[in-house]
């Protein structure tokens, strides 16, 4: 599998890419967006993104700053992976939203959520 495809196949790494899309962030700042993930795990994700050429890294004092490397996602498969992932998340949300009133009526007091 292509390296960039492997890199964007992971939802956490896609979330990191969105964070650094519009500007540089330090590794520590990125980690605060993922409270349920350990710092070493976030560092590992950043390393995968960096190795795949999807983010640029530069040192700033004792920090490392990350920024999305737009030209990194040149691979058609990586692009399509990202497109389907975002789109199917919206499909899921829309279909469940449509279904919810009927489900709620049927479930009565079961308290199911969309």
């Amino acid at each position, binding site marked *: *599998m*292509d390296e960039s*495809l492997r890199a964007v196949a992971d939802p956490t790494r896609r979330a990191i890419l*969105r964070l650094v*899309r519009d500007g540089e962030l330090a590794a520590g700042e990125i980690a605060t967006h993922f409270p349920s993930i350990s710092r070493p795990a976030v560092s590992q994700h950043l390393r995968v993104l960096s190795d795949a*050429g999807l983010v640029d890294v530069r040192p700033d004092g004792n920090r490392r700053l990350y920024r999305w490397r*737009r*030209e990194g*996602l*040149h*691979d*058609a*498969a990586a*692009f*399509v*992976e*990202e*497109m*389907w*992932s*975002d*789109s*199917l*998340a*919206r*499909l*899921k*949300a*829309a*279909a*469940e939203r*449509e*279904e919810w009133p009927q*489900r709620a009526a049927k479930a009565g007091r079961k308290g199911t959520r*969309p």
Partner: protein
Amino acid sequence: MTDAETTVVEQTVRINAPPETVWRYWTDPERMCAWWGAAAEFDPQPGGVCVVEMGNGGVMRGEYVELVPHERIVFSFGWDPSEGAPAVPPASTLVEVTLTPDGDDTILALRHTGLPVAHRGEHAAGWGHFLSLLVAASSDAADGASAS
């Protein structure tokens, strides 16, 4: 194109809705635009056209190959040539979607085959341009969907 030059993208999503509802999001243009593209035009029957405008100048163009109501959709997939559009010509790749009921849920499995594997550096400028437009157009909705 040989197998060595293409790759496959596979994704699976569990949706808390029956296959009949999920099916409508693939066959009703209005519902499709709630999750994919800004405008859609299609004729859901084998050989019928499937065109989705991405809202940024990009146009996905394909043809339905197979439709089994509430179970399976297969269509060809590519982008019209335009500045910044990914180098996937119309109808050059194949998307297979299967819907499997599981209790109150539907398991949606998507398999996109025949995608060209680019060499590093190829199409670089075009991809970045197209991607930034696509992400800008779609990320608000995606953020909303995943914010729960």
